[in-house]
Structure formats: structure tokens, C-alpha cells
């Protein structure tokens, strides 16, 4: 019983982290129509930066925010100076993010070496509290709480603000948004920065739980990809649902079928592809 | 038996009903003109007839055979060919290659990975003949990207003719052509053999009216007038929606 409950707590934690990762991925995909293959890199680079700040004695949350801010800047530079040059050529843009992901992976290997880093849990949140005769790790619950706060904040932004209205219009139809006088290109930069920052933030707060190692980027990217295929491009609710589905599959798969845990993650995606011929990509070939 | 019959054909996009209960009967060998203001649903109707988009309801018959649920590619094999309002050709290939692709579409040869396409004499000659019918045989080896807009319109027709269709659908074949090109095109259209049934959407009334046996006026997705040239031109509703602008 305890085992299952712990597994469920871990699943929810993972779901929260995945939401922070995939919300930005989904918005970028919905708006710019490209899967950002650097998204795992943002997560990993953010985590490494955060770990470095922590090692310098910085407060955990300050490190997470600073790392996110750094990634916002880096994301903005990439969008403005590289992706922008290839506007309208979606395939070239995707391949560009793929190439950059290799550069980032190698840079990280160069700077932080191949040894895994596991930053300590922030002091105030270490340990567990007792309830219903069981122990719950506080930090993991904190991750979930943060994910919920971010989800609500993003939802309010999308649904209640002028900026959100523009994003929604852009996701529905970029051409129409342009006609309506929305500066779609500035919106792209904004969303790309936001996605990069969120991914980095997730990387830092996930680090004590997942640890940081070479290949973390390649582990996270496919998860974001699956979640968006499941949840639909540009849909926050879809990203949330997809994140928790994958969070549960990840942990329960790991526990029950360790050999096939990774493959199981892809099953919902395959089902969607088989059962919904039009897929979530719109038209059939 | 009629060449083409549409019964209560409907198509909506979202809540927008683009074609509404369209009924149309085209006799073999007939030249039918479909006119109507912009947004009347003419091109959508064409796409429904060729199977490019699925109809929501209604029936399409080609020489008596119900083809409503048959995919676009099989309609081509049943003798239906079309041209596109927006030119849809293969820009990297030569003119003759474009026409050869049209010929291949109906030939089992298209699956052959071993033959050398350039050495298929039979195919080349038939493609050349189709180009000759639109007066482009001299430019057969020219790359499509190096031809004029008017020439491309004629390549569209050559590709359709090469398939020796029983029913030919022409979507604004005169669009964007110069005065002289229009004259050439109308001569070309007039010379089409009578065993081909032609349905044409066109805005150029001078050429189109002369060409047509019967005319259908489409307005907001509905057929509002149908008849001979004289009848349609004389009809008050036609004037109202189209001519009397």
C-alpha cells in the first residue's frame, strides 16, 4: 500500500515537472508551428546553471529564478538571431534547433564533465511530514504546488489578458492574427523566451529529484514531444493532462516493467496515431 | 444516360454552408458553364465533384455510377480530369515531363521502378501529342519554371487532355491571361472534341457564354438559375446577383 502511494506521489511530482517542461514546448509548437528540439537542452542547461549557482552558496529559489532568467535571455537570442532568419521555413527551423541541441549537449559535457550532479534538496523542504500514518517527502509536494501555481498563472495569462488573447489568436490562425494587427514576430520571441525560462526553472527544481547528467536533455525532449502529441499543440489543459499521464506511466512503468518502462511511455502516442487517423497534426498526407 | 449528375450535394466548413443542395445534370458532350459571384461555392463544388473534398450529403454520379464515396484518384481512372484555378504543376520538370506524369497516373507503369522513363517512346509521343493540341510541342523540353503564365495554363489543359477524360472540369482556364492569350485559349477550348463533356467555371463572360451550351448560376452555394445562354442572360435573378452588379 505504502509502495503504491509513494509511487503515486512520485508520479504526481513527475507530472508537475513535465508540465513545467511541456507547457512552453506546447505553446511554442502551437504558435510557431515547430517542435523546439532544444527544449530538453534548455531543461538540462538550466539545471546545470542552477547547480552551479547553488554550489556558490546561492539560495535554491534564487538559483532557480536566475537560471530561468539566463535561459530567457539565451532563448531570446536564439529566436531573434537564428530562428528569425528562417521565418516561414519550418523544417529548417526544426533542424536548426536540433543542431543547437547538440552544441548545448557538448558544451555542458565540456563545462560540467560527464559525472552526474545531484544538488541537495533545499534545507527548508528536506525531510518528510507525517500524515495518515505515512511519510510524505515535502520537497516533491512543493514541486507539485509550484506546477499548480504556474499552471494557474499561465491559464490566467492566456485566458484573461490581452497578451493571452493574442496568443490564442496566433495559435488558432497566424494569418488571421497578422491581419488583426498583432505583431506575431514579437509574440514568437516572447513565447520562445517564456518556454525556455520555464524549462530551465523546471530543470533546477527537478535536479534534486532527477539529478543532472549528460543525456538528460535527450531523456526529457521525447517526453515533451509525447505530451504535446497527446494533449494537442498550444493547449495548456492538454499539456497538463498529458504531463500527468506520462508522469504516472513513467513511474509505474519503471516499477512494474523496468525493461520496457521507456517504451510504455510511447504507447498512448501510438494509440492516438492509430485511432485518430487525422492525428493531432490536422490533415492526412 | 447523363455524363454527370449531382443530387442534393452539400458541403459545410464549420457552420458555414458553402454548397447547398446543388442539383446538376450534364448530358454527354455538353459544354456547361458555372458562373456566380466570388464566394458562390464554385470551386468547392468542383472539389466535391473530383473528390478533393468529401461531401457532407448528396450523390455524385458519373455516367450512372455512384462515385460519391470513391476517392479522387479513382475518379481519375473513371474518366474525370480537372484543371486548377491556381496553377498546380511540377515546377522542376520540363513541360513534357509534366504531361508524362499525367499519362503515368492512369498507367500501371507508374509503379515500375525498373523502366527508364525517358526511353518510353510511346509515352513521350503521347505527351508530345497532348502538348501539340495546346500548341506547346515546340517547348516540350523547356523547364516549366521558364515558361510564361499563359503557357502554364495551357500545360494544365494538356495534362487534363492527355488523360483522355470523358468529363473535363476546367476551373477558370482564362484567369490571368492577356487578351491575346484568351483568344488562343478560347480557340483551343472550342476545338475540344465533342465526345468530351466539359464543365467550366469562368468569369470571362464573352468567351464563356459563347462556349457554353447551358449555364448554371450559383449564388451562396445554391443553384438559382439554369438554362440556355439566352434564358440565363434574360433571367432577372441572374442580373440581380451577377450581371447587374
Amino acid at each position, binding site marked *: 500500500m505504502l509502495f503504491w502511494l509513494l509511487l503515486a506521489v512520485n508520479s504526481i511530482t513527475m507530472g508537475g515537472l513535465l508540465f513545467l517542461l511541456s507547457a512552453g514546448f506546447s505553446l511554442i509548437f502551437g504558435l510557431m508551428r515547430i517542435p523546439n528540439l532544444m527544449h530538453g537542452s534548455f531543461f538540462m542547461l538550466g539545471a546545470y546553471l542552477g547547480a552551479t549557482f547553488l554550489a556558490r552558496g546561492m539560495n535554491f529559489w534564487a538559483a532557480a529564478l536566475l537560471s530561468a532568467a539566463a535561459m530567457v535571455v539565451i532563448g531570446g537570442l536564439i529566436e531573434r538571431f537564428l530562428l528569425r532568419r528562417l521565418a516561414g521555413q519550418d523544417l*529548417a527551423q526544426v533542424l536548426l534547433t536540433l543542431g543547437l541541441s547538440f*552544441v548545448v549537449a557538448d558544451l555542458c559535457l565540456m563545462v560540467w564533465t560527464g559525472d552526474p550532479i545531484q544538488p541537495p534538496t533545499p534545507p527548508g523542504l528536506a525531510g518528510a511530514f507525517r500524515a495518515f500514518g505515512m511519510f510524505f517527502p515535502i520537497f516533491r509536494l512543493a514541486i507539485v504546488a509550484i506546477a499548480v501555481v504556474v499552471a494557474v498563472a499561465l491559464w490566467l495569462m492566456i485566458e484573461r489578458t490581452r497578451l493571452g488573447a493574442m496568443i490564442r489568436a496566433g495559435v488558432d490562425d497566424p494569418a488571421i492574427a497578422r491581419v488583426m494587427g498583432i505583431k506575431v514576430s514579437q509574440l514568437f520571441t516572447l513565447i520562445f523566451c517564456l518556454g525556455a525560462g520555464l524549462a530551465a526553472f523546471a530543470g533546477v527544481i527537478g535536479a534534486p529529484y532527477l539529478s543532472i547528467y549528460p543525456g538528460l536533455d535527450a531523456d526529457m525532449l521525447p517526453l515533451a514531444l509525447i505530451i504535446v502529441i497527446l494533449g494537442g499543440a498550444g493547449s495548456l489543459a492538454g499539456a497538463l493532462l498529458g504531463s500527468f499521464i506520462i508522469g504516472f506511466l513513467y513511474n509505474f512503468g519503471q516499477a512494474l516493467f523496468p*525493461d520496457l518502462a521507456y517504451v510504455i511511455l510511447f504507447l498512448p502516442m501510438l494509440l492516438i496515431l492509430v485511432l485518430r487517423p487525422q492525428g493531432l497534426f490536422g490533415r492526412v498526407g | 444516360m447523363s455524363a454527370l449528375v449531382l443530387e442534393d450535394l452539400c458541403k459545410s466548413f464549420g457552420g458555414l454552408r458553402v454548397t447547398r443542395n446543388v442539383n446538376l445534370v450534364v448530358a454527354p458532350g455538353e459544354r456547361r458553364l458555372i458562373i456566380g459571384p466570388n464566394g458562390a461555392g464554385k470551386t468547392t463544388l468542383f472539389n466535391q465533384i473530383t473528390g478533393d473534398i468529401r461531401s457532407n450529403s448528396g450523390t455524385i454520379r458519373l455516367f450512372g455510377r455512384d462515385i460519391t464515396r470513391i476517392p479522387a484518384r479513382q475518379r481519375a481512372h473513371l474518366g474525370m480530369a*480537372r484543371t486548377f484555378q491556381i496553377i498546380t504543376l511540377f515546377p522542376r520538370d520540363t513541360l513534357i515531363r509534366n504531361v508524362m506524369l499525367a499519362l503515368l*497516373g492512369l498507367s500501371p*507503369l507508374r509503379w515500375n521502378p525498373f523502366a527508364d522513363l525517358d526511353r518510353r517512346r510511346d509515352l513521350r509521343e503521347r505527351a508530345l501529342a497532348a502538348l501539340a493540341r495546346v500548341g506547346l510541342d515546340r517547348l516540350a523540353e523547356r523547364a516549366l519554371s521558364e515558361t510564361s503564365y499563359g503557357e502554364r495554363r495551357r500545360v494544365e489543359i494538356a495534362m487534363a487532355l492527355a488523360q483522355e477524360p470523358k468529363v473535363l472540369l476546367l476551373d477558370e482556364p482564362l484567369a490571368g491571361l492577356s487578351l491575346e492569350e484568351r483568344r488562343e485559349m478560347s480557340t483551343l477550348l472550342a476545338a475540344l472534341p465533342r465526345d468530351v463533356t466539359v464543365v467550366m467555371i469562368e468569369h470571362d463572360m464573352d468567351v464563356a457564354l459563347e462556349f457554353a451550351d447551358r449555364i448554371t448560376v450559383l449564388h451562396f452555394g445554391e443553384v438559382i438559375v439554369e438554362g440556355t445562354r439566352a434564358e440565363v442572360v434574360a433571367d432577372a435573378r441572374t442580373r440581380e446577383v451577377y450581371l447587374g452588379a
Partner: protein
Amino acid sequence: MPPGAVRALCLGAALAVLAALPWWMANPYYVNIASQILFWAVFALALNVLVGYAGLTSLGHAGLFGMAGYTAGLMLAAGAGHAAAIVAALLATLATTAIFALLALRATGIGFLMITLALGQILWGIAYRWASLTNGDNGVKLADRPAPLGLHLSSPDAFYLATFAVFLLCLASMRLFVRSPFGASVRGTRDQPRRMRTLGYNVWLVRFLAFLFSGFWTGVAGLLFVYYNQFISPQVVALQTSAEVLLMVISGGVGTLFGPVAGAAIVVVMKNVASAYVERWNMVLGIIFVLIIVFMPEGLVPGAARLVRRGYRGLRAGSGPAAAEAAASPGTAGR
């Protein structure tokens, strides 16, 4: 002499020089590099069928490549003979390709790319995590290379000659494909799928068959790879490999017969040179990728030709025509 004959003569001479390579190249290290170039070229040619001719960019081909290598390796480890292992590997690769195609052809463009990426990751996951089957991170070792027609392929020279023969077969089949009616059908579905449908083509089936053709040669390349290294590990199945072979196709020039071969040569040589001096092959790979996509989307070979032409015209006539030239040359990576 007509230009066609000159080309044929040059090509024949080049192939003769390549065929004789073991006799004029004394250093086995270079012979081995030549073998690598050739089997990577087979892989790149295979991917080019999809990327170049069908206009479908796959990021999952490493999975198919690895499927062939792993099947052969595991069959041999289980005691099967080389012939059985090779046949089984090709059949398994074809079957996997068919499944890939069924799923990925639900979409085109970016959707196709995402689905193939995910499918490739599934195979990577199997190779890496299903340790009881694949030996996980430790990979699979092959004890021996085969000896077709009594010629044992253990020496670099013998292996090179066998690889060269397979490469020639592949090149010939590609040439046949490109010039065939079926090849024309595939290119047609790339340029105007909707028009192809109204012309009577089954666009889906054309793409499916092109995918199978691509998968077959990917399997052959995977077999050459695994026999060359006598070892295969999950790294081979990773996204990196898919990206690397895509770089070969793009750098050489998509949709051309010799582009992928040139691309394979460039990437393999760079990889060997880079790894001799720096450890940073992935960084080099990424940077080249970015540079090519941003500055030479049509590929190194056509791109370099364009830059030279532009420079030449720029010298003669100022900058005006150069801009027109740049605008007129179609960017192919965006397709």
C-alpha cells in the same frame, strides 16, 4: 565528345579508382575510412529517397539502421549462420519500416518528422533499457565477419571490396529508381500531392513504397556497419545517428544522386579528423548543421557552386544580379 559521354567517362574512371583503392592505398587505416564512407553513403542514399525525393524528413532512421545491426548481432550470438542472420536482419528491418511508415504517414512535414523521431526513440529505448534482450549499454559483439564466395572479409581490404560492391549495387538501384516511372511518381507526390491525387495516383501508397525502399537500403547499411565494427550499442540507435545521416543528405544536396555520397564523405572525414584533434565531435556536428541550414540550405555541393557563381558574377557586374541569382535558386531544405 558529347557531354554525356564525358560524364560517363569521368564517373567510370572515378569508380575504377575507388575499386582499385586497396592496391594503391597501403595504409589500412585509410582503407577502413573508405569503407566507413561507403556504408554511410549507402545509409545516406537510403535516407535521401525519403528526404530528397519524397519530401519526407525522417528523424527515426537510426532506429531502422540499428534494427538491422541488432537483429544480425543477436542472431549470430544465438548461434545462427551469417546467411540466416543477414536475411533475418533485412526482413526485420523491412517489417519495422512498414510499421514506421504506417504510423508516420498519418502526417507529412513536421508531423512526419515528430512521429519518426518518437518511433526512433522507442527503438532506442528497447536497445538501451531492454537489457535482457539487447544486453543494454554493453551492446552486442560479433565474433566474426562472413566469408561470401570463400573470400573472408576479416582484412580491411577484403571488407572494403565487399562494401564497395554493395555500394555500387545501391548506387545502381538509386539511379534506376530516379529515372524510373516510380521515381517520377515519388517526386510528384513531393511537389504536388493534391495534383497527383487528381491525376490518379495513390499518394499514400507511393510514399509507403518509397519508405520501404528507403528502409531496405538502411537495413543493408546497418548490416555493413555492424559487420565493420563487429559491435553495436544503443548509441548507434540514438537521435544523434539520425541527425548525422540527415546532415550527410542535406550537406551533400538533397534529391541528387551523388549529393548524399559527397555528404557521407565530408561528414566521415570530418568526424575522423575532428576526433583526432578534439573530443568535441558533437559540437562540430551541431555547428555544421546550423551553418549549413542558415547559409547553404540547398547543400554544400550546390551551395558552394552558387557562392562561386555569385562571386564571379559579382566581380563582373556588381551586386545586382547576385541578389537575383540568390532569389532564383530554390532553397530545398525548407521543403
